[in-house]
């Protein structure tokens, strides 16, 4: 049985930071779990979400679907989703698939909070 996506959530400066703990996101079953949980956060009133990918070394495009679906939900709710700490290869994957045009990508959590956080 596949373990669910491991998350750690925190709220700083009005931003919900989702730290994904899994090193690999390649099992498709997990993508449904990720979609459900990201959408639940948006449905629950999160207006600004930062997804920290620092622990993730490999990701399959089935998880890009999760991000796109969460992005659609965020768009409906006037919320925003951003990413930080992408490895160079994952960032390249975002660029190739145009996800970099749908979501803001930051080099680090600090830089992201500098722009997204409440002052």
């Amino acid at each position, binding site marked *: 049985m596949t373990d669910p996506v491991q998350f750690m959530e925190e709220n700083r400066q009005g931003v919900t930071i989702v730290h994904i703990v899994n090193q690999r996101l390649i*099992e498709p*079953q997990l993508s449904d779990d990720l979609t459900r949980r990201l959408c639940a956060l948006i449905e629950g009133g999160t207006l600004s979400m930062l997804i920290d990918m620092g622990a993730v070394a490999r990701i399959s495009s089935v998880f890009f*679907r999760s991000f796109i679906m969460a*992005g*659609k939900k965020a*768009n409906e709710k006037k919320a925003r989703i951003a990413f930080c700490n992408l490895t160079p290869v994952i960032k390249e*994957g975002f660029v190739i698939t145009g996800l970099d*045009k749908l979501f803001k990508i930051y080099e680090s959590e600090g830089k992201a909070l500098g722009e997204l956080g409440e002052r």
Partner: protein
Amino acid sequence: MALDERQEYNGGNICEKPIWQSRVNYIETGGIICNYSNTFMNNNIPCRTTEIPDKAKPAKFAFETIADTGHLEKIADFVEHSLNDLGIQEKYRGHICVAIDEAVTNVALYAYPKNAKGYIRITIERIKDRVLVEITDSGIAFNPLHHPVPDVTASIEKRLIGGLGVHLMRKMMDEMHYRRINNANCLSLVKHIGGPK
């Protein structure tokens, strides 16, 4: 532990006729079955790894298992170990891993009807300044070269959620070839490891 071509390692048991063997259309490798890494041999996933001797240092690795999403982690382990043992630089490894992840996920999800067990075989070979990856299955014919290119410029409202995997394969690798041979899909992916990408 040495196994011959008609034996499989299955969770600690050497099986003469594993349940899925009849579905397998083997490619003759001329290789030997060897205990390439215990990582692949420590659970109940039927699989075999082949290290094909090439003079002193092996330059080709093969892995075969049931095409099931529950085996993707094992395949990922095999790919990482193989690329490492082949001495592929980090900057190319990432691209190759992405392309293989996408290809094997497609096979695991779509190649065989639900509840039908079929195989997937991955070979990784280094030939001078190229890495050749071959992914074979005997599932439903699928030519990724004919797969439409997704619109990656669409807005979030209009964005379709599928079709990104084949697009990533195309972009991450330098060559992609497809053949349908003996009712098997054979996808070849080539990475030029001396080139600009």
